């Protein structure tokens, strides 16, 4: 699949962010959403650009480290899963995908798609 990605880029908490447009090609439908971002990042690094920062760890849908608003939905279009369990077969060839960090004042952006969620640990 070939996709157009509109991704929120913000170098740090104080900087002003903006959307950047990228293209990825030949993505297999069996690829996970985060693997698709890995592929984008390798491309960006090869082009001498800064990779997109995003949080993740278990990639099994259990740790809660991954996040992302995808096309306006938290964790994207699939149901009952986190972003790391989302697979590209849920999208169509030629789609434009908008990827943003959590939109919430309680979770300020650290960089790109990474937000500060320490507020959670205060209320738990």
């Amino acid at each position, binding site marked *: 699949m070939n996709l157009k990605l509109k991704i929120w880029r913000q*170098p*740090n908490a104080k900087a002003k962010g903006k959307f950047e447009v990228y293209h990825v090609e030949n993505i*297999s439908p*069996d*690829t*996970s959403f*985060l*693997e698709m971002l*890995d*592929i984008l*990042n*390798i491309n960006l*690094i*090869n082009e001498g*650009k*800064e*990779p997109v*920062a995003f*949080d*993740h*760890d*278990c*990639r*099994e*849908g*259990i*740790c*809660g*480290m991954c996040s992302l608003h995808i096309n306006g939905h938290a964790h994207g279009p*699939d149901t*009952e*899963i986190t972003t790391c*369990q989302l*697979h590209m*077969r849920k999208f169509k060839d030629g789609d434009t995908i908008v990827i943003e960090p959590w939109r919430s004042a309680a979770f300020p952006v*650290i*960089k790109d798609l*990474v937000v*500060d*969620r*320490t507020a*959670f*640990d205060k209320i*738990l």
Partner: protein
Amino acid sequence: MLKIESKVPQGPIADKWTKYKGDIKIVSPANKRKLDIIIIGTGLGGASAASTLGELGYNVKVFCISDSPRRAHSIAAQGGINAAKNYQNDNDSVFRLFYDTIKGGDYRAREANVYRLAEVSNLIIDHCVAQGVPFAREYGGTLDNRSFGGAQVSRTFYARGQTGQQLLLGAYASLNRQIAKGSVKSYPRHEVLDVVIVDGKARGVITRNLVTGEIERHGAHAVVIASGGYGNVFFLSTNAMNSNGSSAWQAYKRGAAFANPCFTQIHPTCIPVHGTQQSKLTLMSESLRNDGRIWVPKKLEDVEALRTKKKKASDIPEEDRDYYLERRYPAFGNLVPRDVASRAAKERCDAGYGVNETGLAVFLDFKTAIDRLGEDVIKARYGNLFQMYEKITDTNPYKEPMMIYPAVHYTMGGLWVDYNLMTTVPGLYAIGEANFSDHGANRLGASALMQGLADGYFVLPYTIGDYLSHDIQTPKIDTTSKEFEEAEKAVKDKIAKLLSIKGSQPVDVIHKKLGNIMWDNVGMARTKESLTKAIEEIKALREEFWKDVKVTGANDEFNQELEKAIRLADFLELGELMAIDALNRNESCGGHFREEYQTPEGEALRDDENYAYVAIWEYKGENQQPELYKEDLKFEAIKVAQRNYKD
């Protein structure tokens, strides 16, 4: 010259721990307040230790990579935790759990530690129930159990397929209570980059704040490494992406000996690799082998038909299926230990019977169980795993069998520790997967959670007191000393070096190359040739890394490429030590399978005469051959035998 002393107490095995606890020194509450302890990691090992030591009154600092302690890799543990409760009245006992663990580890673990582990296992269950961990229960309210590999009893406690998560939330809740009380200070998104040794004792760490890049010094009277296992040296594994071997490796380079680095567990039931773009492998819990039956077709034409999608698994009649584990190991069947199950899968796939396009998959089939118990029962037991499988593979495992293949999962090797869980560096402890102590050459399922929590809740809190009782006169550790200075400088220099290379290869590209070398040569089957080749190739790749890696960004910002590069630099050294260790061990045992050493039936052939020891490696400097020490393993409570899962 290292002094290797296991410090195992005298006396009959069943009395050692009780007597020892009575003999060791303790620290008074007034003195505990003056003592600082650093804990690296907040998995089940680190979180249980930190909360318990905080509760005891020590000043604890705890560090982790994720943004909250509760997201540590332990959260991903699925199947369960063992304990010798004998709730099923199936003749389980502390001795039987001890025996199964030693045997499962192919007689390469230290008897006294394993006995203690089995002994405290029952306390863990009570403790976690008191915390409110929602273990699965029978209709009448009593705790339920299931079976795991390498055991003929049902002793595994579980919370659906999310046992690690529930246990970690329990430990995290206790930890949070201490954080609120001020006895524990938590440093999330802080990575430890070196251990500081002063006058031969562990006295602190150097950390990097992962948000700002700031390099910080932290002093303490003792340091505990609970940083997990190093399976990610293979790039693809079931470990979380941030799991790494760096803390253990830094400790090794600072003088802590590393034990049995080559003992790696390849888990038999993982979702097969789908392509070169893959970032990690997903485990399908061993608990599935309670109800799932593993098979491949008997006929090669059926294999062909499956691969070309002319047939589905369900089209192949019963008589044309080879339930090869049940065939080869009638007594344990699908519940043989992991190393045995993984090798058997490899054997069938190497013989051409693999069932997917790549030829690297076997079936795990629930049809018999669904027919017997109904879909609802299976859903209640494994619902989340089935859902995960379906999301990843797009096939419905209630209808068609799962496809699975072995993958790197766990490292039995780790920092060498004595009976007190102390490394060869005084004041430096290692707990959880980071140490080597309890699983020998192969870990049994549901025993890692048991070990991590045993170490953190019930062993370390006692043994560390004995050490610290001799340190009550030592004031707060001065972090302006030349040792801290030197360690901080080394860290900063390393980071500057990595950022200055500006080569052509992204970190992950080199990591994948390392992974391929490891999997092909230091993986499920090893030979003298493959290991010698791996050592050469890793050396060359390490040079390539230091000349050609491309690390984007700067130090003073959130920089994931830099984080990965720092970890990979260590993996590129650790991988070589794994190969050196595997080459030294001229026998097959547990997960370490040297093709030269096997029985005519293809089972691992141990050499107890020459290799009944823990291989302990001491660091000798960059690009120097490490020095080998041996801890001889003596078995007094049990008889050593060839493992037999056939009858």
